[in-house]
């Protein structure tokens, strides 16, 4: 996936996000950042690292804990032609500001019959795995993807994070950029080596709405996204030794959804496992099932498998939490089941 002619260095996903924002801020004075602790702190999960030093308090703005207030202010600024990048610290906090997100950010363009644009990025941390409990560990991308009017992107690695952030800032639509804390490459959190990778120094884009074939294979398709891509890649390497060839579709975007890449892969393998760290029911796993079942259910040699959080809030204790997360072990077991 890396563009080899361009100078790259190994950086974390967090750094890749911050770098994309910095490049766009240099190029366009209308881009600015708002959110809690995005200033000197650099974002609780590193998404705005060093931006304050370069751009100052006027373009990297710490806000009060007033998410309705400052997300609404982002919308108002976007309406007037600025390009705000607004951080909601944890996606779990959506509930205090969901009206601005779903009734305003998402709908103004449509309601205005196309007359008003809302070119805004809303970024938020997602995901579990470090015992942060039921209110700080959710993914919730299914919730947002259900609501028309918001593009939703969820990178799994530093390259895509930079490319998708650049695309998001340049997009004339509201884009929700969800990043998994466990894939940020933070020094203070357990991480997969895949959270640090080669990324070009200069600006580049990854198209919103295009899935990536993270790995080619012939026996089983795993459709997934975010940190679960990293786990799935690990599992695929391990299962290769056992003679199972796994293909991995990294969705990267949920809205728009790249149905073709999913369908092509399932048509090839005939076996589908959807891995999702969001809640199982009424979410991503169902949507992927529908894409297949409304196209051609006979593509499936076996019933598809869903591996997601089994409709329970995220529990605190490590044993409980890993009891419900889509771990490598569970992914491997599900793939083997599909091959049985």
């Amino acid at each position, binding site marked *: 996936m890396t563009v080899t002619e361009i100078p790259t260095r190994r950086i974390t996903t967090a750094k890749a996000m911050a770098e994309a924002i910095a490049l766009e801020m240099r190029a366009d004075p209308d881009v600015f950042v708002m959110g809690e602790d995005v200033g000197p702190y650099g974002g609780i999960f590193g998404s705005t690292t060093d931006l304050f030093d370069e751009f100052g308090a006027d373009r990297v703005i710490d806000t009060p804990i007033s998410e309705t*207030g*400052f997300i609404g202010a982002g919308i108002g600024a976007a*309406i007037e032609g600025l390009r705000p990048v607004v951080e909601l610290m944890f996606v779990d906090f959506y509930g205090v500001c969901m009206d601005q997100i779903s009734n*305003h950010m998402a709908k103004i363009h449509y309601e*205005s019959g196309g007359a008003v644009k809302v070119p805004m990025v809303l970024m938020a941390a997602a995901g579990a795995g470090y015992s942060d409990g039921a209110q700080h560990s959710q993914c919730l991308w299914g919730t947002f993807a259900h609501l028309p009017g918001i593009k939703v992107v969820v990178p799994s690695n530093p390259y895509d994070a930079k490319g998708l952030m650049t695309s998001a800032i340049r997009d004339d*639509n509201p884009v929700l950029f969800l990043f998994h804390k466990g894939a940020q490459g933070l020094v203070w959190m357990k991480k997969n080596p895949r959270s640090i990778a080669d990324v070009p120094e200069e600006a580049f884009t990854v198209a919103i709405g295009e899935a990536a074939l993270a790995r080619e294979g012939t026996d089983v398709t795993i459709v997934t996204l975010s940190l679960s891509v990293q786990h799935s890649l690990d599992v695929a390497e391990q299962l290769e030794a056992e003679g199972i060839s796994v293909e991995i579709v990294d969705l990267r975007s949920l809205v728009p959804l790249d149905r073709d890449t999913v369908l092509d892969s399932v048509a090839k393998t005939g076996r589908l496992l959807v891995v999702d760290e969001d809640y199982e029911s009424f979410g991503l796993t169902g949507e992927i099932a529908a894409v297949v079942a409304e196209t051609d259910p006979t593509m499936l040699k076996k019933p598809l498998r869903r591996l997601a959080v089994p409709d329970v809030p995220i529990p605190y204790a490590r044993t409980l939490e890993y009891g419900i997360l889509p771990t490598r072990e569970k992914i491997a077991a599900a793939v083997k089941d599909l091959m049985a």
Partner: protein
Amino acid sequence: MAMGSASTVPVVDVATAGLRASIDPAGHRPKEENMNSPNRLDLYRGMVRIRRYESRILQEYHADKKPAWDIGAGLIPGEMHLAAGQEPTAVGVCAHLEKGDAITAPHRPHHFALAHGVDMNAMTAEIYGRTTGLCRGKGGHMHLFDPGNHFSCSGIIAEGYPVACGQALAFKRRGTDRVAVAVAGEGAANQGAFHESLNLAALWNLPVVFVIEDNDWAISVPRSRSTATASNADRAAGYGIPGVRVEDNEVEVVFEAAGAAVERARSGEGPSLIEIHTLRLWGHFEGDAQAYRGADLETVDERDPIPRYATALLESGDLTEDRILTIAAEADAEVDAAIAFAVDSPVPAPEDALLSVFA
């Protein structure tokens, strides 16, 4: 009403107020004039224009919902929140605004839209759900968007307040002296967004004027059962910004209070709050039987601000009986034309519903 006493604002000396011609259809005037004495004829004309509009929409809205009243039927379907009685608020505030200033209005938006220069034809066509509408029929009466006039509204209580803060932030960042006006009802002042917006605007010294239209009711709930303070001006102090309650539903009093607030915002001194005690002349929405309203309803007509202002202007010599008729006729002609424009405009094709989800 709950505890406390309302702030009062001196009524301007009507005798010294001169008459000047408006410079654009919305009644926007050059900045240097705005803050001074009001153009009383413009204020009167602006109110009459709104009232004729609302009255006519009222009539058209109900006209084809007979005999069985059906909210979704007729040329104008859906909820309809009319602002009759609240004209002093919109006209008094907007007289200080210029083209380029922003307004976010709530579910009851027509008076502010008209007073701020939103095109009556395009607005009416939107209310009729036509392709020539402001939003090509996608928005409707609670979702009027006119980016040229920086006008928008939202049907969600108080949620226009944060958006106005953002517009003000943009104006400030760009170094302009534009002002954003955020409008909501007294019921809305108990919604979290109100609080967050006032704090944000105060903290960042944004050029916002927060307007609360206190019409005593939030649908069927009287202010005394929604609000723990008699004046939202008291709340402004909690954000260190000026707050004023205008007790009289008189356009010149509103004009005076709004002038100070707009001037403050425009000159970079930050936000203010104005609560105007106004009057909901009709139901919350059309179809509202107002059984809950009790005795309050009996005196409603007496409290109508427009005849009262006409009487005052007749007495002061600013208006004549003839002029009253001309102004009404002019307004009616404009409204007639707008309705005709709407009715004659095409209805959107069903498949157009799929357009404009994304830019």
